[in-house]
């Protein structure tokens, strides 16, 4: 991990609420892996003061891509940055997803910006010859951004949205069971929705399929020193406090406490 001043190669709006950003990452020394994130300085003033964490959306040879939802002051400032400008990214941070060579097929359940986080994993799975089945959930069809990217990684994609009235938990449960009944899924991955994570955690337990989840929490330092970003893990019968930025953001789906 390191704070890098990287050149913005592109930063453009891709839907009503989402933007896509590409930076020149040739200076990044560390190996960047799916599930990890960068803590990004949005502008160069003290307003916003804190960095904002963003998952890596796509990892390429000399570039990194991020997909972000415009939410508040920080992400708004990000949209103001233009191609050619410099942006300060601190990372890569956190524990990545882990795939096993033996995995044949994995299932991704992503909602909203969680799609960005899981897209990088689908890319890696594809490179490892692992097949991906993905359920993407979003408010509108317009927000289902990474569909094409996922298709290009050979993923089988199911889409549900509020707009179409298909994104309720009950419907997702049925789709999940249908997939699990018809595919031999080795590993589950989820990101972006508490309700869907609870659902997947339950089904994973029922069916004995291990899973991983990428969590979000408000962060101070992003490097494990401030204890801002804690959550609870249930392990060997006891609750443990862990840090999302350092011990995560990827945790075992079985262990995470989704209270």
């Amino acid at each position, binding site marked *: 991990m390191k704070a890098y001043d990287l050149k913005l190669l592109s930063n453009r709006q891709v839907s009503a609420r989402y933007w896509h950003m590409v930076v020149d990452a040739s200076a990044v020394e560390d190996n960047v892996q799916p599930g990890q994130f960068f803590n990004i300085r949005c502008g160069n003033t003290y307003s916003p003061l804190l960095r904002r964490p963003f998952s890596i959306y796509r990892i390429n040879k000399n570039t990194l891509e991020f997909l972000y939802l415009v939410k508040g002051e920080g992400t708004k400032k990000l949209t103001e940055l233009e191609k050619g400008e410099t942006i300060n990214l601190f990372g890569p941070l956190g524990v990545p997803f882990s795939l096993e060579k033996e995995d044949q097929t994995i299932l991704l359940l992503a909602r909203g910006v969680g799609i960005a986080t899981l897209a990088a994993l689908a890319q890696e799975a594809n490179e490892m010859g692992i097949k991906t089945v993905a359920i993407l959930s979003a408010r509108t069809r317009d927000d289902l951004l990474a569909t094409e990217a996922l298709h290009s990684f050979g993923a089988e994609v199911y889409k549900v949205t509020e707009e179409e009235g298909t994104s309720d938990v009950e419907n997702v449960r049925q789709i999940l069971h249908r997939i699990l009944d018809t595919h031999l899924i080795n590993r589950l991955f989820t990101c972006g929705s508490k309700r869907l994570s609870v659902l997947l955690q339950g089904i994973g337990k029922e069916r004995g399929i291990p899973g991983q989840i990428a969590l979000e929490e408000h962060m101070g330092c992003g490097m494990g020193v*401030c204890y801002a970003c804690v959550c609870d893990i249930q392990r060997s019968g006891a609750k443990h406090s862990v840090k999302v930025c350092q011990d995560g953001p990827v945790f075992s789906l079985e262990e995470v406490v989704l209270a």
Partner: protein
Amino acid sequence: MTINEPDLTVDIGGLELQNPVMPASGAFGEGMDQVIDFNLLGAVVPKSITKFPRGGNPTPRVCETYGGMINSIGIQSKGIEHYLNETLPYYRKYQVPLISSISAESVEEFVEMAETIEAVPNVAALELNISCPNLKDNGLAFGMDEDITYELVRKVRGVTNKPILTKLTPNVTNIQKIALAAENAGADALVVANTLLSMAIDIDTWKPKIGNVMGGLSGPAVKPIIVRQIYQVHEVSRLPIIGCGGVMTADDAIEMLLAGATAVQVGTANFVTPTAMIDMIDGIRKYMKAHDLKRIDDIVGKVVLTNQKKVES
């Protein structure tokens, strides 16, 4: 031609530091060793430790305000055992002094912890965190009371020969009185100061932005309040002062030195710029060269008040 390098060393109550920049407790830790070389710092200050393990407060534990951040971590701690067995040994590989910040629920517990740490050779000094807003008592802290401050420091003084740094709270009517209480009780230095008790509310959800309702404000927003308190404390106390609160750059550090601080602690800036402390040391050195200043003491408390007609307010 050899350029005379300025001398950045400072003396904090008998503790010699190679430069006046050190981390603020709670905003620094082992994870940062991948980003900066701890051996370049004036000292290292791990997060405040409590006697027993503590879970800390509900999330969100941090939020932003204009030019500042509020935190209410709740001194999440693995307890002193873990500190002795894991944290302190980790820092042994560094040559710079380690200052142990301790936090406790009672005077007796402070004393007990100080006694335990007295026995540890690689702890160079003790920092008494008597200032964390204690929400049990509606934000009151030990450091808000002159007599308790005196008693607490006095008793800790009784059990340790290590330099005692007392970290004051800025949330007081008269910081000079608290500073003098700590000085008279035997403190060797004063950290001025901890965070300002604050609150922010989300006007969409109507909920406090901090899980624990209130928290401590840090960052650039608080600097002018802290500079004033450093100046006030320096007016009455002979103890070295460590300025803390909103130091983001070398310029901020120098401003605090001019107000009367001998060193500074850096918290929030580490989150914004992980290399902030190193940049700051370089910046102070450059400033001293540019102004032909030989020693840090040439700056400390040197704010110019002449020609300043003091008129009644």
